[in-house]
């Protein structure tokens, strides 16, 4: 599964994207696995209310299932326009 990071999430983790091997059933499960890896992940995912998630380039929720998903992206609330 491809995992992408944008804006300060990317900066805190220090990577724009990575391939992750996981059996996580939901986004929240994946976040738990990532948090447990290293402090920089724990820091990036410290406050989920400050984060948004997209599954295969559609905005989604942290309790959404990951079955069939190829690309997960984490980022702060968007500031376009």
């Amino acid at each position, binding site marked *: 599964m491809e995992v992408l990071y944008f804006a300060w999430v990317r900066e805190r983790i220090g990577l724009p994207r990575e391939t992750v091997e996981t059996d996580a059933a939901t986004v929240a499960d994946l976040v738990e696995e990532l948090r447990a890896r290293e402090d920089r992940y724990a820091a990036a995912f410290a406050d989920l209310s400050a984060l948004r998630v997209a599954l295969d380039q559609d905005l989604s929720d942290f309790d959404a299932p990951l079955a069939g998903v190829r690309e997960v992206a984490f980022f702060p609330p968007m*500031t376009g326009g």
Partner: protein
Amino acid sequence: MRIAVQTAAFDLGDEANAFAAGLDGAGAVVTFTGVVRDLPGGGLQAMEIEHYPGMTEKAITEIATQAATRWALGDVLVIHRHGRLALGEMIMMVATAASHRKDAFEAAEYLMDYLKSRAPFWKREITAEGADWVAAKDADEDALERW
């Protein structure tokens, strides 16, 4: 409908004229243009805009399609830049055309409200002190509730 996500500058006048020239029967044209403005206390050197290639185009297409479903529109244009922009540069523009001014205005405001909070762009303000990510405003999230 034309959607462009680009680093290159665009010319508001050229885009507005091209948009208006392509219309057939629309009586009302609205444009909105966003310009890089200084911080309240001054000191902005540049604005950097990061985006999510692929999702950006998809999200904007969905937003524009939604607008075309809700209002009777003759045409829709969205241009949004990313990368580094200087003070005074144009960041983005939308244009809407409709038979009636109310439709053109509402659709343009809808596009702007959704582009602000639902298209994957992130702005960073560069000053002599460093770079700060722009925080999303509650007011921008609240703005979606009127639709």
